[in-house]
């Protein structure tokens, strides 16, 4: 019983401490640290002064009023351009709406030859979680796809599903994130844990992620995600930019 009350008071203590400034991108280091390296990115920036990035996702394009909203690939590009003066930075957002990993894997060779990216930032796992595809099979497909990208000359960063409090109970992305972590460790590539990062923002009050309608949070959240991914790329590729934060 004593154990339980000690544990509970610890939790409550942590709860009291965790409070963030509104609209702050800050997250604890352990949520964004990585041990993996992006050697091709480092080489391309230092030797060729260019950086060709493809952001690959299965998210559908925004429609209607929302179609003019800027997403994280845009912010990633402007962040990197600002930090890597003298480097020609391109970020191309390749959207394959509602496609699962098996369908996307088929298109990877074409993507590699058309765009010749040195970095593929791959946002994956959401469609698979919604459809309940076998997580183990997902892990194997992701593993071979990442290998194909690496053999095609690209570094890879994985991004998992986002934290979506209103649909959180409808499907469970946990097993897919776990498989992404397994791939990220065996293939030595960074995983940007978007779910944990956004959950932290939601829990600390940095952003209200529960709004039913468009309340302007979209661009704020995407700007922060773009910035955090830029941080991750700079660190993993051992680049020191013109602008230090």
């Amino acid at each position, binding site marked *: 019983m004593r154990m339980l009350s000690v544990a509970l008071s610890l939790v409550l203590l942590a709860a009291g401490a965790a409070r963030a400034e509104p609209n702050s991108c800050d997250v604890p280091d352990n949520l964004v640290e990585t041990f993996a390296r992006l050697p091709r990115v480092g080489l391309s920036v230092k030797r060729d002064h260019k950086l060709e990035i493809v952001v690959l996702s299965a998210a559908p394009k925004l429609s209607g009023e929302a179609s003019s909203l800027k997403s994280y690939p845009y912010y990633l590009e402007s962040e990197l351009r600002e930090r890597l003066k003298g480097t020609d930075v391109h970020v191309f957002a390749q959207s394959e709406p509602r496609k699962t990993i098996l369908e996307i894997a088929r298109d990877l060779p074409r993507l590699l030859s058309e765009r010749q990216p040195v970095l593929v930032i791959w946002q994956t796992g959401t469609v698979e979680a919604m459809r309940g595809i076998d997580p183990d099979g997902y892990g194997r497909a992701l593993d071979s796809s990442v290998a194909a990208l690496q053999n095609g000359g690209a570094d890879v960063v994985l991004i998992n599903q986002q934290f979506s409090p209103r649909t*959180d109970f409808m499907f469970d992305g946990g097993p897919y994130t776990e498989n992404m972590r397994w791939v990220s*460790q065996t293939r030595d590539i960074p995983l940007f844990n978007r779910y944990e990062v956004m959950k932290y923002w939601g829990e600390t009050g940095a952003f209200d992620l529960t*709004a039913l309608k468009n309340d302007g949070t979209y661009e704020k959240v995407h700007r922060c995600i773009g910035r955090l991914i830029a941080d991750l790329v700079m660190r993993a590729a051992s680049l020191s930019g013109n602008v230090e934060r």
Partner: protein
Amino acid sequence: MLPAPPAGRDLRLDFFRGLSLWFIFLDHVPSNIVAWFTVRNYGFCDASEVFVFISGYTAAFVYGHVMKERGFVIGAARILKRAWQIYVAFVFLLVFYFAEIAYVSSHFSNPLYTEEFGIFDFFQKPDVVLIEALILRFLPANVDVLPLYIALMTFFPPVLWLMLRQPNLTLLFSVVFYFVAKTLDWNLMLYPYDHSWFFNPFAWQLLFVIGAWCGLGGARRVAPILNSPPVIALCVLYLVFAAPLQLSWLFPSVSGRMPGWLMILPLDKTGLSGWRLFHFLALAALVIYYVPFDAKFLRSNWARPLILCGEHSLEIFCLGVFLSFSAHFVLTEISSLIAMQVAVSLAGIALMVTVAALMTWYKDIERRGGKPPPSATQEGYRGVTAS
């Protein structure tokens, strides 16, 4: 004052089933900090294994006696009646699930979640989805252990018939079936994408049958082996190996430094991976060794809430799923601060205990009100019910 447990009942079953029901509830509240306390963070297996094993154990124990004394037909009828009850409970939960999805889908247009709107695609054709759900071909997340339970119970009568005659042979069949199903990738398919059941019944039947085998005296027969020092030491070693590995998985900064040969996680839950199965068996062996049948704490006051929940496992499971939906609702509508997560978790458990206590109290009243106490041939044989 919580009602006291009946004498002569193996309270360990109720106690640990109650605990697994609490864990299932806590794990089902999305992104809940209190889920840190649950078993899945400290080893390979989680509450699902405990639930399936104990369900197999009690099903064999209760319906085994019915089948032995009143014949196959009566025994089978009882089992199928139980399967039907679980099915009705499943449909009941489905209604809540659909209601919450319908509510969210009709009010939700935040562009931040455009990708997640894909989940509403299922409901473009409600007629098809409803029918597919009723025939267990559309299974929402979080209730999928119930369809497994339904499938296992539906096919249990012939298994139990054989097990009463040839327990070891039945167990052997089950093991062979497990390996064949895993090798040939057997699983049941689901609407609409031809994906498979989250709990593969062809794999998970093994744990249910192991439970049944133990419930019919298998546990007693292997007790001398299980209680031998080398086996106990082996079990302890395995748990000691699993705990830091699973815990490290929660801290990327630790698991990132792990050597490649230790990268066995994540383990296959759908196909009940061997690592998980043996983790559960080791855990069970240690529990049996260190917690004797008549352990004092089982009759203490603080164990009562757990035992009460374990006594009404189907009802409390359903209540737990319903409460996890409600807790999720509170966390999104009111506040998702960590203090709130703790509050809804505690409130949920308090409700589960209260409802379980009321059910036990009502059952007592009913029993005293003229009906004779259940005889040895009834479901309440030696106080153990299959619920």
